[in-house]
């Protein structure tokens, strides 16, 4: 019942449409501005923040560098505590496992804790094909699901919606899937939250099967951790009889003590709180408390491809806090939908190509959805050098086109430049030509740059038009440096 990202256009096309939506830009600027200020305040009060980031990165790095050992250990610990461990190579396998568990219990609905992994594999759509309704219970996910919309942010999937839009969605859609919203619903966030509480409570109380992800999975003990705010996670993890958790293989951490830096880093980076309202941990089955049948699906779906990339591997440290989205000047303007994935923003611009591989025009456009300003790296709690990975992925995208029969305009320009720059005589001709062009442009140029230098506006022609459509080209100087040196004897005459 929610949409799909399949068939999304490449980033520049999608971004252009998003930029034209003034309501969207207003909603995003307001929301990201609020969260940036909150994060800055709570991060600022931790004197040891930089050491904490190093510690967080080290925990994840330790887990990734010896992933096989930790995954096998996790499986053993979980099994010893009564959980059933499944492995899924890809989305289809993971979806099939969850559907099978639901079918085995004869249910036609499951309640869900917000989970990026299940979004990534399209679990809700897959369950719907089996006639099973998957109810999202996180408030923002509920807004997205009821609005037949797509998520646009990792932490707050409905960040693109304002309170008035949320009210309309609740009034229109709640009644068709359960308890309707009260007729006198206002657009106060507290009133809207209360309506979600009433709507979802009957679903929590009757649900037999719940589906979750996990923020962390402790190899040593088999403990899974879910970090949340609303209590919908607790409801799903506690009340149903059966719990299935879909966990990416990169979520593993070696020991229980390793949770320390991560539990301190995540809430401050994510919601800008010292600690999130609720963190639940469970280790297999606890007799008499919570689900008595516990399944864990360990998911690859491209993670091992990312793991094999020596530069990109660090992206698997990501703890899905979304600080990089909130800090990114590109994300703040385009929003998340333009990235065409459940992982938008700077982290999405590297995770998608790393997990799916380059070669598809939409995926290949993502490493370019950045000005490389570095704000994402600065706020990342586990020190993922996103700009470094972006540049690395751009080179992979370019390498992928080396053999093209019709080269890109940029490749032609670069080839021409290489030809000119590799021979001093050729460079001389180019300088002469550029001097002439400079004279012409100074006369014809319609734009003047700060400092009085004349510039060209849009220049027609393949490649040039795209480049100059949004940039002014400064008029080249009339005389080249080398010509000036010869004429003045290095400035002496």
């Amino acid at each position: 019942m929610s949409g799909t990202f399949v068939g999304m256009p490449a980033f520049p096309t999608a971004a252009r449409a998003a930029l034209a939506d003034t309501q969207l830009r207003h909603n995003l600027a307001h929301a990201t501005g609020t969260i940036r200020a909150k994060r800055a305040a709570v991060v600022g009060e931790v004197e040891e923040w930089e050491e904490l980031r190093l510690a967080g990165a080290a925990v994840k790095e330790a887990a990734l560098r010896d992933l096989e050992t930790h995954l096998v250990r996790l499986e053993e610990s979980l099994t010893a505590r009564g959980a059933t461990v499944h492995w899924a190579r890809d989305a289809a396998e993971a979806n099939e496992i969850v559907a099978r568990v639901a079918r085995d219990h004869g249910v036609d609905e499951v309640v869900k804790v917000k989970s990026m992994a299940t979004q990534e594999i399209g679990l809700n759509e897959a369950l719907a094909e089996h006639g099973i309704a998957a109810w999202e219970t996180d408030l923002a996910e509920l807004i997205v699901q009821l609005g037949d919309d797509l998520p646009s942010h990792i932490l707050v999937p409905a960040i693109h919606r304002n309170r008035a839009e949320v009210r309309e969605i609740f009034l229109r859609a709640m009644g068709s899937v359960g308890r309707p919203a009260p007729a006198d619903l206002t657009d106060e966030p507290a009133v809207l939250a209360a309506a979600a509480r009433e709507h979802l409570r009957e679903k929590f109380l009757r649900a037999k099967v719940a589906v979750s992800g996990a923020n962390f999975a402790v190899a040593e003990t088999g403990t899974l951790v879910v970090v949340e705010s609303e209590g919908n996670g607790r409801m799903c993890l506690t009340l149903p009889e059966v719990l299935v958790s879909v966990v990416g293989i990169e979520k593993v951490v070696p020991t229980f003590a390793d949770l320390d830096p991560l539990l301190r880093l995540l809430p401050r980076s994510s919601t800008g709180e010292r600690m999130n309202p609720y963190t639940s941990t469970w280790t297999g089955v606890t007799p008499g408390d919570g689900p008595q049948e516990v399944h864990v699906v360990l998911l690859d779906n491209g993670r091992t491809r990312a793991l094999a990339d020596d530069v990109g591997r660090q992206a698997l440290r990501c703890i899905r806090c979304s600080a990089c989205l909130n800090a990114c000047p590109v994300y703040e303007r385009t929003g998340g939908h333009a990235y065409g994935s459940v992982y938008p923003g700077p982290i999405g611009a590297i995770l998608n190509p790393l997990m799916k591989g380059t070669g598809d025009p939409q995926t290949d456009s993502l490493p370019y959805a950045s000005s490389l300003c570095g704000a994402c790296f600065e706020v990342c709690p586990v020190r993922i050098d996103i700009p470094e990975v972006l540049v690395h992925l751009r080179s992979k995208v370019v390498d992928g086109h080396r053999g093209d029969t019709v080269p890109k305009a940029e490749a032609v320009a670069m080839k021409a430049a290489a030809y000119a720059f590799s021979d001093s005589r050729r460079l001389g001709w180019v300088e002469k030509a550029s001097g002439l062009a400079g004279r012409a442009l100074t006369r014809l140029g319609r734009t003047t740059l700060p400092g009085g230098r004349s510039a060209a506006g849009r220049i027609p022609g393949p490649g040039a038009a795209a480049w100059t459509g949004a940039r002014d080209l400064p008029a080249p100087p009339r005389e080249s440096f080398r010509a000036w040196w010869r004429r003045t004897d290095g400035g002496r005459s």
Partner: protein
Amino acid sequence: MTTARDEILARVRSALSGVDRTPPLAPAPRIAAVPDLVGHFADRVEHYRAVVERCAAADLEATVAAALARHLPAGSGTVVVPDGLSFDVPGAVVDGAAGPGLTALELDRVDAVVTEAAVGVAETGTIVLDHGAGQGRRAITLVPDRHVCVVRAEQVVPDVPDALARLDPTRPMTWISGPSATSDIELDRVEGVHGPRTLHVVVVDPG
């Protein structure tokens, strides 16, 4: 046919061939000690808009009774307590005293729950339940709308690593920092969604 497990582990092995497995060394830093740990804890819990009060051990039962009277509608309201609570809550239903305990639907009609805790984390204003004696199974502190939680001063530790060191990972745990909340609408924080909308913490000083 290779199983998914074998194939994933083989992919991991091949992805990491030649990678140094030595874990990088970067111990998590400790925060500076605060002079009044329990006071710091109380401040931080209150910051989440929980109600916090401190009392002497001798006044605990009266303090809890007053807290319930404050949050429950006058003359009515049902209260549930877990088996093994170390003090008396007159009139409360004891969950699991005989048999499997209340169902979720029954708990949904209960107005308040009173429990103890396992650990309090001062820096983050967090209460940790490990659902042992006096804390009950997870559902009883989740479904009722009001939670009165008693934390003893000696259970308060400075920060997250101290809490992890005190806890048994094999027990189910709930870390609670204030009443349930959401920031999902315009990132504006609102207290009160699915978990208890009222959190009342009683900190018991020794003596």
